[in-house]
């Protein structure tokens, strides 16, 4: 068996999700290749050669892969698919974009967002916002899979010695063009890789109150997240959203402030090791998943927390 992992990378470095996806590939078993596709991506490819357990890194470095548009990414994956029994990418917005396209071109039913490998053809995946786990078996010759990154430990990023070889990018389809990314400016750690996350919900009342959470986050070296209600209300940008339709995270400590704990929010954070809830409503469902609950007005509790830390 030979497995291909498609690397998520930006600005010359591998994104952490790639390391989790590599360990999912190792759980399936077999040789693991990594495909690094992009424009000017040699240093990310070098980084991939260092990851323990990777045999070969294949690099498609081409201007047509700038912005990693789905059409060109999918064609590239299809062009090398016959070398593999499994093709994996992280179930982040990166992988979710082109993987189903590649699957359909290969006439394969994708297995989305796997949370465990049972055997090389059977996988567990959450459905209904994580309210149930389905064990699914694939009958396809090549298995295309996206990986729930919080469910697999990161592979070791250094100490490996994979070979590196170029792959020719597929012809540019020119069906779409990348215009740019408006990234939210933040000095803080990234939400999906943070060990501690402090999240605010509708209870924060306004974006102007988020600095209060940011000060707590800074004392803890934490990232700041939010519920959908807080994002929809414009308190914070979309990339803060945790949940079924936002980011799925599993930090060591998750502090939910003024968040009620809707099913869709829990879907994104209930695998956190320790959950703290601060909410003035003792009936809020968030308390059912919290290890430590504090029934209090957040406008008293959060400043107090900042001074206690």
């Amino acid at each position: 068996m030979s497995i291909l992992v498609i690397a998520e990378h930006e600005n010359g470095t591998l994104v952490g999700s790639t390391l989790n996806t590599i360990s999912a590939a190792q759980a399936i078993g077999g040789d693991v290749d990594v495909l690094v596709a992009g424009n000017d991506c040699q240093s990310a490819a070098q980084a991939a050669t260092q990851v323990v357990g990777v045999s070969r890194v294949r690099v498609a470095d081409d201007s047509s892969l700038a912005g990693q548009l789905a059409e060109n990414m999918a064609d590239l994956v299809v062009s090398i698919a016959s070398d593999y029994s499994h093709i994996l990418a992280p179930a982040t917005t990166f992988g979710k974009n082109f993987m189903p396209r590649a699957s359909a071109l290969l006439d394969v039913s994708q297995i989305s967002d796997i949370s465990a490998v049972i055997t090389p053809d059977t996988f567990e995946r959450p459905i209904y916002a994580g309210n149930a786990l389905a064990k699914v078996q694939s009958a396809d010759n090549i298995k295309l899979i996206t990986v729930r990154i919080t469910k697999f430990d990161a592979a070791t990023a250094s100490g490996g010695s994979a070979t590196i070889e170029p792959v020719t990018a597929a012809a540019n389809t020119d069906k779409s063009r990348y215009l740019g990314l408006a990234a939210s400016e933040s000095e803080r750690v990234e939400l999906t890789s943070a060990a501690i996350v402090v999240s605010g919900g509708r209870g924060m009342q306004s974006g102007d109150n988020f600095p209060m959470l940011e000060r707590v986050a800074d004392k803890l070296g934490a990232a700041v997240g939010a519920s959908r209600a807080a994002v929809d209300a414009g308190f914070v940008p979309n990339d803060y959203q945790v949940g079924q339709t936002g980011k799925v995270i599993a930090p060591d400590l998750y502090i939910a402030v003024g968040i009620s704990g809707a099913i869709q929010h829990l879907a994104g954070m209930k695998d956190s090791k320790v959950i703290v809830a601060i909410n003035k409503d003792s009936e809020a469902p968030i308390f059912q998943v919290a290890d430590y609950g504090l029934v209090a007005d957040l406008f008293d509790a959060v400043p107090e927390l900042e001074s206690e830390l």
Partner: protein
Amino acid sequence: MKVLVGIKRVLDPQVKARVNGDRTGIDLTNAKMTMNPFCENAVEEAIRLKEAGTAEEVVVLSIGPAKAEETLRNALALGADRAILVHTEDTLEPLALAKVFKAIVADEQPQLILVGKQAIDDDCNQTGQMVSALLDWPQATFASKLEINGDTAKVTREVDGGLESIDVNMPAVVTVDLRLNEPRYASLPNVMKAKRKPLEKKELADLGLDTANRLTTLEVSEPPARDAGILVENVAELVGKLKNEAKVI
């Protein structure tokens, strides 16, 4: 421009899903069903395009059980012009759905296909991308803003790193996110009017497609529950617990 919108009937998002007795799926007996929330955004966007004069016709398509007719009528009440139900009582995988879309597109020749980015039951997030692959059209996923400019469309995509903009050639498939718009409610007169709008039924079997599932669900189970936590009295106690008991700070 003609817009084709895909819609799916799903368990209401406010209802907690429970595994059925024989652990083969979710118990949907007498459960409250509704239009998948992301599909509501797709329908809304299509109707707005029509109201703005950009689209002439909005056709809604559902591939599913006879009861999906209700969901299609709901879309008609919201303002869609015409509905197509491709009837099957089987649950198809996204790949099979994409094949059905392709067959319908051959008849309908839309210039834009709008679908939700994911269905909240299987959480697959595949169908739109697969439809565009089989049609050899461009795709724009997770759209929170859509601007049609003749032969191209500019789409703002919600991605993990922020908001990405791309430009796609038309015709295209766009999968929509919740922040694209705020769906309207159907007024009572429109609900009445929707009953007389055209709804065409086709049998999946008559399309002559290979829609066999490739995945077998062996078992469905409840996720492990978290251990019950405790309530702390105050912030000082909380910080103490986090330092000394949980040892996470």
